[in-house]
Structure formats: C-alpha cells, structure tokens
C-alpha cells in the first residue's frame, strides 16, 4: 500500500496541514498542488521584479517547516510550486536545508514546461497553437504580449526524480492529478500503457488535488455534519493506493472534517466535462465505470476505474495581460433606493468623462449579483449594496477614477456610504488566456539535481 497525502490545492492553501500527516506517521509521500493560470501570471510579475523569484512563497514554508520533518522520516515531498522558476526554488530549498543542518538530501527540479521564450522557434517548426475554443491559429507570438506559456507535463519526470532518490521534487506546470500519479508509478512500476491503473491513479489524484474539498469543504452534503469551527482546520485527505489501482480515500486521523461517499461524489465531478473522457497528459480516464463503497469511518473505497490511451498531444496554456480591474462598494438605504441608485450611476459616469475606462459593471449585492435574472429581487429593498467594477489598460487610470468618484463625497446621493477598504484597494490584473495543443516531440522535460 502507498499512502499519499495532499496538503495544498492552490497558492495560499495552508501547507502546514502536512505536519499532522507526517508527524503522525500517516503518509509515505506528500504532494502540494499550487498552480493556476492566474498564479503563473502573478509569478511572472514577481520574476520580472527579481529574476531569483518566480516560484510560490509556499515553497519557502515547505522548505523551512515541513521538509526537515519529512526528510527525517524519509517521506518524499512533491510540489509544482516551482511555478515559473523551479531551478531557483530548488536552490532556495537547498540553501534552507543546508542552514537547518540537513545532510544527504537530494532536491530535484523539473523544467521544460515553460515555452514562452521558445514560441517563435516552435511556430517556425510548424506548431500553429490553434485556439481550443475558437480554432483560430496563433498569429505571431511576438506581437501578442504573452507573459506565460506553459505546457501541462505528465508524471514521467517526477517518477524519474523519485526513482533517482529525490527527497523533494519541485516542478513548474504539471497537470494537477499527475503530481499524485507519479509516486504510484514510482512505487509500483505501472507500465505507461497500463491505462486502467494509470486512470485509477488519476482519479485518486483528482480527488486529492483540492485538499479540503473532499473532507467537508465547499460541501452541500457535509455542511450540516460539521461544527462551524471545523472548516478552519480540516484534516487534509490521504489516499491508500494498492498495486492493482484500487484505493481508499480517507483523511488525516484525529482531525476535523468528514470523508463520505457523498463528499467523494461531489469532488469527483468538480471541474470536469465529459466524465468518460477525462483528459490528462498520461491517460484518458473514465469516471463512469468506477464504484464507491463506504469502508468504515471516514473511508471510501474506489474500484473499477478504467482508462484509455493518452491524448496524442499535450495542452498548452498561454496568458497575456489585458489590463486591470478595480472595485468600489457603496451602500444605499431607505427611502427611494432605486432613485438613489440612478443618482449614483449618473454621478460616476459624469466623473469619469474623458477617462479611458474600458468596462463598467454594476452589481447589486444580495439582490441579483450571483444569479442575475434567475433571482427573485424584491421591488423596494430597504438596503442596496452596490458593487461597481471597472477596467482600464493601466492602473493609473483606475487610481484617477477612484479619486474623481471620491471627490463627490459631500455631493453624493443622500445617506450613501462607501466601503473604505475598497477605496484603498489595489487594482487586479486581467489576464487573457489562449489554450492550445503542442506535439509531444517538441517538449523535453528535464530533471536536474542539487544535493546537500
């Protein structure tokens, strides 16, 4: 049996949930999944400011607080938190480990996913990067202002690193569930065309990769079973995977939360499209043949997963800067909220005359901001919370826009208030995405090692 813990599902997750898994002796390996398209773009900004950055801050916490404890127990750690700069992250980990007095430790960095600098060369070699949504070919990469272009790698380079004795593997963009699949292949030696077992590993990875979401977080099925205080310290999930690919999904013993057939079903269908063809770099997984059975307290057995050959090509996601967005929130109250709403909109529009504001959207929070016309809005609410979102190509325009609106502070609709934290807020980046495919022969993952 291989016991795989999952201690991160996004950049900012509480990676120290790995500690009770490790210190309690509940896991053989721990994985940390940190990346999204937006995360990669944020990391690019960090890296432009400092070429030694470009990886997630969470990796520093892992190196400082978790690695010494895992290394002492020979529990390997795997993370894609290397983001755009796994090499720099590996150096930081080595330095941190050396300072902590660890010796005999091997750090592996996986690169080769970041193809931003190679786009012109790859286009010359015949890659058209057809947009998966529109079918349009990428015109000229040099003119598109892309800040990220990353291939979703599979499990293979991580398997190689683990088999070469790495104590921590740090990667860039690896498809989320493949992070978790890698230690299974490294342990059991599953063949790269053993589609059913690879698919089973992907299902385990898919269930693990959103940490809290399979142990009671974001769960309609579990919301009445948890104490309100539980959500802030759910015990993160662990899979007990067998050589035949069957596994039990459970959570860190002695911690808050719950694992049930219901929470597993919720997470199984999270962010998937065709459940019979879940595409990953290593296998096409079928979620429609598996069986879920309760297996004791906080344990669900998963069996019967089947798979088909992997897709011919790999997915590439590119991001380009499209501008910035800003938020202001106003409150309006009785009497005549709708008249006041009209006055507010007119005041803002006049204030922004001549400014290059691109989009302006008004949301009425608590009325119809989530569901628009699906909601049944009251005719005359006593309170109206208005959220104004607006965008521009540059952050300075947004700053001016806020200043001009706030200059009407004593000339506003009667009784209006503004949320001070939104006035002092920062602009957020708007990122345009271009998803496409690339031939496998154009992608060469590379594993490099550092030792202490």
């Amino acid at each position: 049996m291989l016991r795989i813990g999952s201690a991160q599902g996004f950049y900012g997750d509480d990676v120290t949930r790995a500690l009770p898994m490790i210190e309690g002796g509940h896991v053989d390996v721990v994985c940390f999944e940190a990346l999204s398209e937006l995360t990669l773009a944020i990391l690019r900004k960090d890296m432009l400011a400092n070429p030694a950055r470009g990886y997630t801050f969470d990796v520093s916490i892992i190196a400082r607080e978790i690695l010494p404890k895992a290394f002492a127990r020979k529990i390997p750690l795997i993370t894609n938190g290397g983001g755009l700069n796994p090499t720099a992250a590996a150096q930081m980990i080595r330095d941190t480990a050396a300072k902590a007095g660890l010796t005999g430790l091997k750090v592996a960095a996986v690169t080769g996913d970041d193809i931003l600098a190679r786009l012109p060369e790859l286009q010359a070699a015949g890659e058209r990067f057809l947009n998966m949504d529109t079918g349009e070919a990428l015109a000229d990469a040099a003119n598109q202002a892309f800040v990220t272009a990353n291939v979703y790698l599979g499990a293979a380079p991580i398997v190689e690193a683990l088999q070469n004795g790495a104590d921590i593997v740090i990667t860039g963009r690896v498809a989320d569930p493949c992070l978790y699949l890698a230690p299974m292949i490294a342990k059991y030696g599953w063949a790269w065309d053993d589609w059913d077992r690879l698919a089973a590993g992907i299902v385990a990875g898919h269930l693990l990769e959103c940490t809290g979401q399979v142990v009671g977080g974001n769960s309609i099925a579990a919301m009445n079973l948890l104490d309100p205080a539980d959500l802030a310290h759910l015990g993160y999930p662990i899979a007990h995977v067998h050589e035949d690919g069957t596994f039990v999904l459970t959570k860190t013993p002695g911690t808050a939360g719950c694992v049930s057939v219901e929470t597993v079903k919720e997470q199984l269908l999270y962010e998937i499209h065709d459940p019979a063809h879940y595409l990953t770099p290593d296998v096409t997984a079928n979620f429609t043949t598996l069986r879920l059975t309760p297996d004791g307290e906080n344990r669900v057995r998963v069996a019967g997963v089947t798979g088909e050959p992997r897709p011919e090509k790999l997915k590439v996601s590119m991001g380009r800067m499209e501008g910035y967005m800003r938020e202001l929130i106003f409150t309006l109250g009785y009497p005549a909220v709708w008249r006041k709403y009209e006055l507010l909109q007119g005041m803002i529009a006049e204030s922004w005359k001549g400014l290059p504001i691109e989009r302006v959207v008004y949301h009425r929070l608590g009325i119809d901001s989530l569901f628009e016309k699906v909601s049944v809005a009251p005719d005359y609410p006593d309170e109206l919370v208005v959220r104004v979102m607006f965008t521009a190509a540059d952050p300075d325009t947004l700053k001016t826009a806020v200043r001009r609106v706030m200059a009407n502070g004593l000339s506003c609709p009667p009784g209006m208030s503004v949320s001070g934290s939104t006035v002092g807020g920062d602009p957020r980046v708007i990122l345009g995405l271009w998803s496409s495919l690339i031939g496998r022969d154009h992608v060469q993952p590379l594993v490099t090692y550092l030792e202490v």
Partner: protein
Amino acid sequence: MRRLFDLAYGRSGDKGNIANVSVIARTPEDYAEIKAKLTAERVKAFYGDLVPGNVIRYELDNIEALNFVLHGALDGGATRSLRIDPLGKSLAGILLSMEWDT
C-alpha cells in the same frame, strides 16, 4: 412543493469560460426521476441569460449523478470576469432551488 434540492445535492466549478454543475441524487429513486426529467434544455432554460452558450448533459449511472457543462457561463472566465463569483461556485446551489413538482 419539492425543489430539486430535496432530491439532489451538487457542486459547481470552472474551466476557462465554461462552468460545470453536478447534480447528485440522494436516492436511486431520485436518480431515476432526475435522469428522466432534468434535461439539458430544462437546465438551459432555468439559467437563461446566465448561460449564453450550450448546455451539455453527461450521465453517471454508476454514482447516480448528472454533470452539466455550461458554455460561456463565466463572463470570460476566472482571469477576466468582473463578477463577485468569478469561478461560478454558487451556480450549483441556485439550480437546486428549481421548483420540481410543477
């Protein structure tokens, strides 16, 4: 009067500008009823302007659940959307409010 919530629970999430909503039956009988009556057309009509594109339905008899894929439902997707719920996390909940016995 029952609502869909009385027969099912679910979760929603994002992939680019596409949202997906799972509808997971509470009992085998509920699944039979949902599978027969909760068509892609009915879901598309329920969301109205919130889902400008196609709605595709997938069936998972093995776990008694349906998966609805809602195209164009996320105002450009998480990296561009100006909505307060850019990931569409609330979309499953409102579908469960659907009046069932009408």
